[in-house]
């Protein structure tokens, strides 16, 4: 694959006089020139509020916004663009579903996996549901066959890929079992949509949440796919742009997706997602997956081969993140030294405290990869780790 680094201007940057090795992609990805230009062009030539104007600019931005929706819809294999809502991000998407389904969830149960991010835990608790984790084995492989669905189970909310381990959950298997019991499934795709092709109809889920900024687009924007059969649930938010008729006694809502987009949305953000999809599709999602798999496996094997390194999680399919610790060295200490070598990683509990408890650690060092990372980046990480060990010896 051609060198993609040059498409990302920030990767030219030096930090502390060293080449930037950016391995914090699970937190947020860098942006290619095409996305940066799209955002800049939008504000310099098209900016206007959408759907409500009679003037030229409003028409232009409304069209670009709706085209972005269409693009996302095709990208994730939705049946029609109306099933795609722009939100503020994955966290917001999940919170909106939790709020909309509150009356069903309250006093009932949501099944999750044991590797969930807090954003796929807390919203359900706020909605009054209790949570139960589907069992997993020592490597964090989900044991979907052991999944127990009871009368209280009203939803399965599961991450496609773990933000900590990079483990990929067998979501199709989960959906198949859920369908037998007519339980809806929400897929948190924050850590998978940038790494592999996604097809919501093939998966068969009812909801899918993702963030723009982790897939090379702007921060503060995300998507929520809601299957047609849930198209009439109550909107989580009320306001302008989502209503049909408002009186002081009663309000009727527009059809999806607009009923779920109260207020002025992140227009530039939504359009930036379309530009990011174009960028990824120009390379090809299969090619991205292949390249990333090669770099990811290379890095993971190097870590596994190194004495005194604990690598967490071992599942059949993995992508994005690798979590590890150096024996006898606190994760924070590792991260600080790597930082000064120009290597950006993340340390701590990664908003997944229940998983940390399962792993028996307070935190880990997480290196997370994107399409522009190379084996050279992995080698620099390994050099950095050697240096860390020398420093604390």
């Amino acid at each position: 694959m051609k060198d993609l680094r040059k498409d990302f201007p920030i990767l030219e940057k030096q930090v502390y006089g060293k080449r930037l090795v950016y391995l914090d992609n699970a937190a947020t990805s860098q942006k290619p020139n095409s996305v940066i230009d799209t955002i800049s062009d939008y504000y310099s030539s098209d900016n206007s509020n959408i759907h409500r104007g009679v003037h030229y600019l409003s028409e232009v931005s409304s069209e670009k916004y709706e085209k972005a929706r269409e693009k996302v819809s095709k990208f994730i294999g939705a049946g029609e663009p109306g099933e795609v809502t722009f939100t503020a991000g994955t966290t917001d998407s999940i919170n909106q579903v939790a709020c909309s389904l509150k009356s069903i969830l309250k006093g009932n149960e949501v099944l999750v996996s044991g590797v969930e991010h807090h954003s796929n835990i807390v919203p359900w608790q706020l909605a009054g549901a209790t949570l139960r984790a589907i069992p997993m084995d020592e490597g964090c492989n989900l044991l979907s066959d052991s999944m127990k669905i009871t009368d209280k189970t009203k939803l399965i909310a599961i991450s496609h890929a773990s933000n900590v381990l990079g483990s990929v959950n067998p979501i199709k298997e989960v959906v198949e079992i859920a369908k037998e019991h007519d339980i809806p499934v929400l897929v948190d795709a924050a850590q998978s949509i940038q790494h592999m092709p996604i097809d919501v109809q093939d998966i068969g889920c009812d909801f899918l949440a993702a963030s723009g900024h982790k897939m090379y687009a702007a921060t503060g924007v995300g998507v929520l796919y809601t299957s047609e059969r849930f198209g009439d649930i109550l909107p989580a938010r009320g306001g302008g742009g989502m209503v049909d008729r408002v009186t002081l006694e009663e309000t009727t809502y527009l059809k999806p997706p607009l009923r779920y987009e109260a207020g002025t949305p992140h227009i530039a953000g939504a359009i930036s997602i379309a530009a990011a999809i174009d960028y990824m599709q120009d390379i090809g999602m299969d090619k991205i997956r292949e390249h990333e798999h090669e770099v990811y496996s290379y890095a993971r094997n190097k870590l596994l081969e190194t004495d005194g390194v604990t690598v967490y999680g071992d599942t059949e399919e993995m992508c994005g993140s690798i979590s590890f610790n150096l024996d006898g060295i606190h994760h924070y200490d590792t991260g600080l030294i790597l930082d000064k070598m120009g290597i950006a990683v993340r340390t701590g509990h990664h908003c997944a405290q229940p998983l940390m408890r399962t792993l028996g650690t307070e935190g880990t060092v997480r290196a997370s990869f994107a399409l522009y990372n190379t084996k050279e980046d992995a080698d620099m990480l390994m050099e950095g780790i050697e240096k860390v060990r020398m420093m604390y010896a």
Partner: protein
Amino acid sequence: MRDAVQDEIIGQFDGLEWLDKYGLLISFAKELEPMDKEFKTEENSISGCQSKVWIRTYRENGRLIINLDSEAMITKGIIALLLKVVNNRPPREILDLDLYFIDEIGLKSNLSPARADGLASIIRRIREVAEVEAN
């Protein structure tokens, strides 16, 4: 007002590269007397740090004795420096201290929100204790 202990620390860090600064912090960390396990309680821990930090204080002959410990070495190194400056002083003196060495040796990033406010939380806690003891 300049302070001899802080000036000495600044002198030690002067002109060092970042990794050497960390190297020096690690050597200070190794010198720090570890806190007994029994004192590493939830009550004695300081929140707002990326790594766990515990504090124990008591008064001896009118001076405030402070023990600090952390599970991370760099944090330990920083608190070892901090203790060189603030430990074993009358509480009023601690409250009057201007901790300029933190800025001057380049540790200010440890005070920023990006570092989860760690060092700032520790200093705040020490000041709170000193405030109570001074009155």
